[in-house]
C-alpha cells in the first residue's frame, strides 16, 4: 500500500485559497496610498494624530472612501516636511474627513494637497 500523495490535496488547497481569501476584501490603491501619506504626515507634522485620518474603504450604509484621494496622497508623499508645514497641508489633513457618498454623489471634499 503506497503512502498517500500530498499533491492532489495541495492542488485543491491552492485553488480554494483564493476564493477563501477574497472574503478578506481586496486592497484598494486609495487605501494604501492614504496610509503612506498618513505616515508622512506623522513624521512631518508636529502633533499630527494619524488615528484621526480615515484611510479605509467600506460599504454598508453608503460607501465610505479614504479621506485622501490618490492624487492628494501622492502629493503629500512627494513634498518635503518643510513644504507640508509651510503650505498648511498638515493642518488641512488633520481636519480632513472621510469622503462619503450621499444620494449617489460624493460629499464636498476640500483639497488637502497642494
Amino acid at each position, binding site marked *: 500500500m503506497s503512502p498517500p500523495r500530498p499533491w492532489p490535496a495541495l492542488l485543491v488547497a491552492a485553488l480554494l485559497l483564493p476564493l477563501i481569501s477574497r472574503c478578506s476584501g*481586496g*486592497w484598494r490603491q486609495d487605501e494604501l496610498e492614504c496610509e503612506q501619506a498618513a505616515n508622512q504626515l506623522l513624521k512631518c507634522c508636529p502633533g499630527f494624530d494619524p488615528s484621526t485620518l480615515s484611510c479605509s474603504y467600506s460599504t454598508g450604509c453608503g460607501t465610505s472612501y479614504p479621506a485622501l484621494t490618490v492624487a492628494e496622497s501622492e502629493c503629500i508623499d512627494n513634498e518635503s516636511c518643510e513644504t507640508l508645514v509651510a503650505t498648511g497641508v498638515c493642518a488641512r489633513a488633520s481636519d480632513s474627513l472621510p469622503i462619503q457618498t450621499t444620494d449617489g454623489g460624493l460629499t464636498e471634499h476640500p483639497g488637502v494637497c497642494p
Partner: protein
Amino acid sequence: MSRASRLRLRRESVLAPALLLASLSLAGPAHADEPAPPPPPPPMIIVELPPAPPPEPVAPPPPIEVAPQEPYRPPPQVLPAFRIEGGATFTRIYDIPINGGQGSLAVGAEFPGPFAIYGNLTIFGGQQETGLSAVHVKLGGEVEGRFGRLRLGAGVNVGYLSLGQATTNSDIAALTFGVEGRVSFDVLRWGEREKGGLFVVGKIGGDAIGGWDASPWIWGPTVGLGARF
C-alpha cells in the same frame, strides 16, 4: 699322403698350441675365479660444429586490441540538495515601492537529468514608500533546469503578506498566490556531479494579493547570492 700335406699337417699341429698359448698370455694372468674386467670405454669423439648464427631480433607480437574497460559506475542517483540564498528585493504594489531584503531556504533533489526540483521558504522584510513595515512569507515549489553553470527555473508559491498601517495599530494582511522565474549562475562549483555551488541569482516574481480577480499584485525583481549543498 703327399709330402706337402704332411708338412702342412705338421705345421698346423705345431701352430695351434702356440696360438692358444699366445691368446692366453694376452688375456693376462690367469685367474680362473675373478670376473672379467670391464671393457675399455669407447674413444671420445669430439665434433666441432660451426658457430651458431646470432639470433635475429624478434619483433614483439602485435598488441591485442582490447577495448578499454571503464571502471564500474553505479547508475546516477538523485542527489538531495539544500540551498540558501539572500538578496535585495525591489517590489511595488500599484505605484507604491516596497523595498527590502529577503532570505530563502530550499530543500530539493538534483536529478541525473539536467533538472532539479526544490521546495522553498522565503521571508521578505522591508519598508513601504514612507517607512511603514512590510513582511512577506512564502512557501513554494520550483523546477530548475541546468545548463552548465547556468540554471533557469520557475515556480509557484503561496504566501502571507502583512503591511503596516499608520492610521491603526494593526497591520493589514492577506494571502498571496504567486509565480516566479529565476536565473542563477554558478561562480564556484563543487561536490558530486558539481551539485554544490556558490552562485549569483536574479529573480522576478508577482503575487496576487487576496485572489486572482481584480486584486493588486506585488511584484518585482530580486538580486542576490546563494549557496547550494
